[in-house]
């Protein structure tokens, strides 16, 4: 999709297969690989987590700094999501200015976290208009075997849930070595997750391997939460030149709710 690294034969064989509802690794089209979350990637971070989805591995770390608020939100803390596709994680990545997929990854993670309002930014004010906490989330893939955005959102949420506020020195600076026991203020009932649908031929599927992601002609990422009985979409982005039909988007709206529930049920014990 972003730059074909697979042969035409592999592409054709995969297209024939997914259109029959099958995949190279034997999974169903809407079946996840094994998902695993672990914590404490770095004790220097206020919170950090590692997510594995099959062979894909993404880490996320949360740091807090004291800054001035933005002029349009003097009574709110700030949120900043960044990250990079490190050349360590794939032969496809290179050092240098970020290509589009490196720009897109943190932006998609940012949007679902920001728009779901899971971080209670109004509780991160030290002095209104002057000093507020900035929550900085960095996401880095360690091994890219597809479905990076879904894994990155999961890692970011896990790291946020675990993060503890730094102390503050007498001079008013953050004290990272003496962290408090106070959690970063989160709307506890909200668990934003990402579900990305990939399309190849007339088939829709989730959680692709790198090879499947390369073969896919277009994808659409959705960031959502469950609120009561409803699934709320907070962010979406179609990436790729092939259109989605109206019917496919209507199907997607139902499918992402089902996949959200499945992923959440799998992970609620460790999140």
């Amino acid at each position, binding site marked *: 999709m972003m730059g074909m690294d697979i042969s035409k034969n592999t592409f054709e064989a995969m297209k024939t297969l997914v259109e029959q509802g099958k995949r190279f690794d034997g999974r169903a089209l809407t079946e996840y690989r094994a998902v695993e979350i672990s914590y404490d990637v770095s004790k220097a971070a206020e919170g950090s987590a590692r997510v594995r989805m099959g062979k894909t591995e993404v880490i996320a770390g949360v740091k807090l700094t004291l800054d001035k608020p933005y002029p349009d939100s003097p009574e709110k803390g700030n949120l900043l999501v960044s990250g990079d596709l490190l050349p360590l994680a794939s032969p496809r990545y290179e050092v240098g200015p970020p290509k589009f997929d490196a720009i897109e990854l943190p932006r998609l993670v940012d949007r679902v976290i920001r*728009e*779901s309002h899971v971080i209670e930014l109004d509780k991160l004010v030290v002095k209104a208009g002057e000093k507020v906490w900035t929550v900085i989330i960095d996401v880095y893939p360690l091994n890219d075997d597809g479905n990076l955005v879904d894994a990155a959102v999961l890692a970011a949420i896990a790291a946020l849930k675990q993060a503890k506020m730094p102390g503050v020195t007498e001079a008013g600076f953050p004290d990272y070595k003496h962290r408090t026991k106070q959690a970063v203020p989160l709307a506890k009932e909200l668990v934003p997750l990402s579900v990305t649908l990939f399309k190849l031929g007339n088939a829709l599927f989730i959680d692709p391997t790198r090879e499947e992601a390369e073969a896919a002609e277009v994808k659409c990422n959705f960031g959502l939460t469950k609120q009561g009985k409803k*699934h709320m979409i*907070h962010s979406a982005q179609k990436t790729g030149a092939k259109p989605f039909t109206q019917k496919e*988007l209507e199907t997607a*709206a139902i499918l992402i709710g089902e996949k959200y529930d499945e992923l959440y049920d799998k992970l609620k014990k460790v999140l």
Partner: protein
Amino acid sequence: MASFKRSDGRKVNELRPMTAKVGVVPNADGSALFAFGDTIAIAAVYGPRLLHPQHMQDPKQATLRVNYDLLSFSVYDRKKPGPSRRSQEISKMTEYALSPVLDLKEFPSTVIDVQIYILQADAGTRTAGINAASMALAHAGLPMKNLVCSVAIGKQDTTVVADLTKEEEDFHEGEGATDFPLAKIANSDQFTLVQLDGNIATELVAEVLEMANETCAEVYEVQKKALKAGATQ
């Protein structure tokens, strides 16, 4: 639903007054202006022309290269000139929105440059930009399967509405505001742009898509009329 009052008094499915014109940049191979109310976009097309440097050429097809940006004084807080991550993302999404209607294989090794600038921004800049660019491509005489029409559908609390203003995007009551920009190939079921920011129940997606069909048909008529008027000049 009928009880919801929009801040500017429009009906839920009512677009702002649209303005469309082609030939606004005489130097370009094709150009157009498209406005939704106070949001004004101009687009210019240059090419197909040989792509330099040579190693960037695709011998199989033309490269569609879109550059979208806000002019510095198009927004109240001056925008620093030059590309941002936001503008790079919108440029890419606009390429994806437009390329399905173009016959890129007709012009191997070339580039089709589409420059989109926003003169005045009051929300819906990417959708106005796509509408202008689609017209500019047609005005340039490029072979196209159809026009692309784009509208931002959105939501105010629980009511689905079309073509939000900036004031509506900043609505905070109830479920707040949702911005759901869409583009589609005219008179088809093919959606070429899907983006969303906000808070909307999955069960409302079908209603949003229906409103996009209905309002994109209006955009299409305005685009067609302007192209016909341009052709007779």
